[in-house]
């Protein structure tokens, strides 16, 4: 009898591992794709670092002259994020401080700026490759799944919208979720505040996935009642992003996505009508805005 129970128990324990096998395969595939990219990026990162070192070498070549100019600058933009800005910044500062230097010195500095500009172009060409991931420490940046869909008024929307915003706050909710509905007003407030900084909030109502008209009508009704005017998007049910939502442990859940389509920090669970949750979210928004300013 005991052997039979033992065998039965063993079989029932194996059963769920088989049942969950199919679902389990998907996340691990994603993981292996993520790790494949950095090794190719590793070489690029090396080249990028070399270029930056060359730019610094140019500046060091005429250190005494450059130091005079640098003293006139109140802030120094970060060289690493977008080299293009730096040469322009240097030439603008030089223009504003021409009287500090003799004509010959000016010529030397302008030649340096030209050389730096060339190196920046080469940097930009390297960047074109994969993710704009020049920070070697940050190899684990996660991209928000690419998606294409429509908003609740039928207009086409896809993940290219991220490039147009300094930061995008992506909120997932569904119509019968009380906590989700409670925060819609606050999300609209956040949207208006972010729009002034070049950002936006977008919402995904999982009930509307697949384009169910009744669900879309219901979602629109709720959004109107809560005066939430920001864009809400629906996508097809089998898509990558839709599959991601199946794995969420709870709703509402909010992601902060930067201009490059990468997720900043961890997703935040809970309604932002709770100040503690809003604090967490705001910290990530601020990080994303900061990073965007420097690039």
């Amino acid at each position: 009898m005991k052997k039979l129970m033992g065998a039965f128990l063993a079989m029932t324990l194996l059963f769920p591992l088989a049942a969950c096998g199919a679902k389990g395969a998907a996340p691990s595939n994603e993981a292996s794709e993520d790790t494949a990219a950095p090794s190719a990026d590793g070489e690029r990162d090396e080249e990028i670092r070399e270029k930056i070192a060359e730019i610094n070498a140019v500046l060091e070549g005429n250190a005494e002259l450059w130091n005079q100019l640098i003293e006139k600058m109140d802030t120094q933009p970060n060289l690493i994020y977008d080299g293009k800005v730096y040469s322009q910044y240097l030439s603008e500062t030089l223009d504003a401080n021409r009287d500090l230097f003799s004509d010959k010195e000016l010529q030397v500095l302008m030649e340096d700026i030209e050389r730096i500009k060339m190196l920046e172009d080469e940097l930009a060409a390297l960047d074109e490759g994969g993710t704009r991931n020049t920070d070697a420490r940050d190899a684990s940046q996660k991209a928000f799944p690419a998606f294409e869909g429509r908003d609740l008024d039928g207009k086409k929307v896809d993940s290219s919208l991220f490039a147009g915003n300094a930061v995008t706050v992506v909120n997932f909710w569904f119509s019968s979720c009380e906590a989700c509905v409670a925060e819609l007003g606050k999300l609209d407030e956040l949207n208006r505040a972010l729009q002034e900084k070049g950002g936006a909030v977008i919402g995904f109502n999982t009930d509307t996935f697949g384009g169910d008209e009744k669900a879309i009508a219901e979602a629109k009704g709720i959004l109107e009642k809560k005066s939430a005017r920001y864009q809400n998007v629906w996508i097809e049910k089998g898509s990558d992003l839709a599959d991601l939502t199946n794995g969420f442990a709870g709703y509402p859940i909010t992601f902060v996505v930067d201009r490059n389509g990468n997720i900043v920090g961890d997703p935040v669970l809970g309604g932002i009508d709770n100040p503690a949750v809003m604090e967490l979210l705001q910290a990530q928004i601020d990080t994303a805005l900061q990073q965007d300013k420097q690039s």
Partner: protein
Amino acid sequence: MLARFRGFAQAGATLMSNIHLPNFFRGEIYRGAGKAVCVPGLNCYSCPGAAASCPIGALQATIGSSHFRFAYYITGILILFGVLLGRFICGFLCPFGWFQELAHKLPTKKLSTRRLKPLRYAKYAVLLALVLLLPALLTNDLGMGSPYFCKYLCPQGVLEGALPLALANSGIRAALGSLFSLKLAVLLAVIIASVVFFRPFCKWICPLGALYALFNKVSLLRLQVDPLRCVSCGRCAKVCKMDVDVTTAPNHSECIRCGMCIGACPNEAIRFRYGFGAKGVDATRQCDETSI
């Protein structure tokens, strides 16, 4: 005979109700087709392994919905479970019932609940107020009601849902606040009470138990006492941990069909019966028939 395997049945039911074991490590909830039906026992929807929905959770979700008129589907399921099995579900198939019994195995002084019988009515109040009325009446500006029992009282939700999810999922961990503290306190109180009393939650608080209790008298699964074999020794009533006297009330609403009385009876006067036509006390049987 059935009662000997009750522990295995409870373990098996707990496993089958929470079959998606890998989800415990992923910190995710199964959201597939299984969630369209309910398990018979009290098993949280938000348990990572949960194979189906919680009947009480589903009831509140339906009643709390802004479209609510009547919870036809879930009421139907509960009537089906109640009529087919009654509180046999409590005794054999409920994971939280099993959990309380395991806690009760801890070797401490045990207190009897015999004098606390009035507390039994509290679970009907929980059912009526937190599960049925409040989600329908206490709604937000969109007509949506909260699942008040799940949200403020259910300890199974903490044990199976919040704790495993918080362990594996950092997002959930970060979201834990004062409500979690309250619910954790409820869980700890129930655990401590379960060590000292037998199944206190089932007796005094569980709304699902209250529902099934109402069906015990009309359930197809019943107990039968043979009056010709019963010698009124009283051993069955003494051993019953749900404080039921099976000889006077074999299908009492508090009987969870655990079968301890059957084991205690010196004359094999008590048996399980299933199906139509089985009466509680069979007065027409002949003297010389033997029971199976």
